[in-house]
């Protein structure tokens, strides 16, 4: 009896094993053959490119078609921090880094410090210097060297639900003082509605606003000296301004760019948002009720009549030291960022990048660009005006660490357990101790 079951099951197992083996071999063959677009004539120079911009594969494809001698392979290895950690890991280990990668402006200095990015002036990039807005070119330069091609930017504006503002009789604020009083009044009259959210855990947004307020907390121009100042008078004033609104529940303490926030915006809980040029397009897929109602207006100013812009993020495209073909890599990066051919692709959905490339920025059709959530209005007029006036900022070379620390440092503020000024002090201490442990010569104070 048992023998029969044994033989039976032995046969079945052999069949199963056979199936598994065949499947494994098949999968192995499929999996190991690179499913790259096979190019006739493998004489093209291979370039690897890491980026996460949605739809940038269209630009890569266009480049490959128009430049048959270069084959660029795109790989999305994660947006932001995951990509940077992979980059630093590969650069430190000595192999595995791509030729070109998308690196945000705030992360570029850390790669400049470790000398992992090449000075592209040797490949002639200065010839395109004039086609970019000056502050963007400055962001990618260090001394006389240029270490990346500027890509997109995120000039900021105040984005609001026009129907809701009319309904609640809120004036569009032109100064932060107006913003504050409108927010407080709105909350008093309608406790469940907010003029905007405020999420200090998003460090990039926080620092963009601080830059506009003249409260930039870092000084760094390369080398080992860095100044970290989150507790100076300007920084504290900035913190107190927002703390007043947080305490009065006049701003909604929800995490920025989260499903919660987008749902709030669509349902009329949040009727405004200090946002950058590219967020509205990301907001669109979540919109059902307020489609077409959103308008942009210039970011409120600290002093009436001033015209200081703010920039939230944006990426540059450096070439790495490990690259075997730096000349071709530079050619690709230049094409990607300094040609209308490329921008005509990346300005459209789903990429919807906002350019630092002047020819596009200044073109009339660009100013008349519409996005679905904004109906027939032209938000790019506002954003475009801001794009050329962003303040010039100095990023320290440890933003990965700062960005990783920020949510932890500022979560208590969002949860109402700590004031922003107190969190600034704690964050300062964290960054100072980190910088010191990394061997920097740290000074505090005197940035304003």
């Amino acid at each position: 009896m048992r023998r029969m079951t044994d033989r039976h099951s032995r046969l079945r197992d052999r069949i199963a094993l056979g199936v598994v083996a065949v499947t494994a071999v098949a999968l192995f063959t499929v999996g190991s053959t690179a499913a790259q677009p096979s190019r006739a004539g493998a004489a093209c120079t291979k370039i690897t490119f890491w980026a996460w911009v949605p739809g940038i594969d269209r630009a890569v494809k266009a480049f490959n078609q128009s430049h048959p001698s270069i084959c660029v392979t795109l790989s999305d290895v994660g947006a932001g921090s995951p990509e940077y950690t992979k980059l630093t890991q590969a650069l430190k280990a000595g192999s595995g880094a791509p030729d070109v990668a998308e690196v945000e402006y705030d992360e570029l200095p850390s790669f400049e410090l470790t000398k992992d990015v090449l000075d592209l002036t040797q490949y002639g990039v200065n010839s395109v210097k004039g086609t970019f807005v000056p502050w963007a070119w400055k962001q990618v330069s260090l001394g006389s060297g240029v270490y990346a091609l500027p890509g997109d930017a995120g000039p900021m504006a105040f984005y609001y639900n026009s129907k809701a503002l009319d309904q609640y009789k809120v004036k569009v604020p032109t100064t932060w003082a107006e913003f504050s009083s409108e927010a407080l009044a709105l909350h008093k009259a309608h406790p469940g509605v907010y003029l905007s959210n405020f999420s200090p855990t998003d460090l990039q947004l926080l620092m963009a606003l601080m830059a506009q307020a003249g409260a930039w907390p870092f000084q760094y121009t390369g080398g080992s000296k860095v100044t970290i100042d989150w507790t100076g008078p300007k920084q504290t004033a900035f913190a107190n301004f927002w703390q007043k609104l947080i305490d009065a529940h006049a701003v909604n303490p929800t995490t920025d760019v989260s499903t919660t926030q987008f749902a709030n915006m669509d349902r009329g809980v949040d009727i405004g948002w200090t946002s950058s040029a590219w967020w509205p397009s990301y907001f669109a897929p979540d919109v059902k009720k307020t489609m077409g109602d959103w308008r942009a207006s210039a970011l409120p100013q600290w002093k009436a009549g001033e015209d200081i812009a703010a920039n939230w993020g944006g990426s540059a495209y450096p070439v790495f030291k490990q690259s075997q073909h730096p000349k071709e890599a530079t050619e690709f990066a230049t094409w990607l960022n300094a040609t209308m051919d490329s921008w005509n692709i990346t300005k459209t959905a789903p990429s919807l990048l906002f350019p630092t490339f002047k020819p596009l920025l200044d073109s009339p059709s660009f100013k008349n660009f519409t996005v679905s959530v904004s109906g027939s209005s032209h938000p790019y007029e506002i954003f475009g005006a801001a794009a050329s006036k962003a303040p010039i900022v100095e990023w320290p070379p440890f933003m990965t660490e700062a960005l990783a620390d920020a949510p932890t440092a500022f979560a208590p503020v969002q949860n109402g357990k700590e004031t922003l000024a107190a969190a600034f002090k704690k964050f300062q201490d964290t960054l100072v101790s980190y910088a010191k442990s990394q061997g920097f010569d740290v000074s505090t104070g005197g940035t304003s």
Partner: protein
Amino acid sequence: MSTLAIRRPAVRSRRSSWAQRRDRRGLWFVVPFTLLFLAFLAAPLGYAAYESLFRDQLIGGRSYVGLANYHAALHDGTFWSGVWHVALFGAIQIPLMLAIAFFFAAIFDLGVARFGPFWRAIFFLPFAVPAVVASVMWNFLLEPSFGPFTHFAGFLGFPNTDFFSPGLIWPTIVVIVIWEWTGYNMIILYTALRSVPRSVVEAAVLDGASLFKVITRVKLPMVRPAIVMLVFLNVIGALQLFVEPQILGDFYPTAISNHFTPTIYIYNQGIAGQEYGIASATAVMLAIVIIFISASVLLLTRWRRHA
């Protein structure tokens, strides 16, 4: 054929050289695994231990610091708070989950509920779900403004429940981990229970033992080895908790700090902060803590058995 000894000889020196040679052939069975083990587990471990004696700085590069990193890890308050968190987490989650798992395993084994195989198949399904997917699913279910569970909580009289608020985040993770692992633990306990000889159970029942007594006095002791193994595995899993908070932290950065669990702390130190030396030292420190806690738990169960 002459009767063979059932138990192996008590005195080692009496073993014949033939037996020794034969036993050495056993080495060959173990060699393939051991080679892979050394190459892919032991070697990186050794390298990590080596790394822990150095410090990498953005300015100044690499330098030998001896045990300074260990000193720093030992005195690192954030690390120990993370250890405390996961220890507390484990102390609550593991007994709770094992109790539930054992309860159902016993029920199915005794056949006192209907449709046993059907329930068992369902309970085991979460094992098929990778932690990444589970975290995404639970993220949507518990989403503070539109999640079904949030609505349900409101319905029950708790409006505006934020499952990811500082007060609720740990219970939320407990629930998620219980969801993921109860079925697996239950199946192991169930098969262990099934191997208990019927005769023992029948004897107890005929002696007048109630259902409860049968479960606790007869079955429970006989599956103690399985329980010990599960406790061991679960303790290690709890102390190394990483994926669920990491993914949830992507959705709710305010809920998960960068030192939420020790492994997240190590990850942030080493990979985000590029302090590989300190991260390695912290990891070694964590391994020591895990050994200590696992050993204590195992000793505790052994002591209870002899009591």
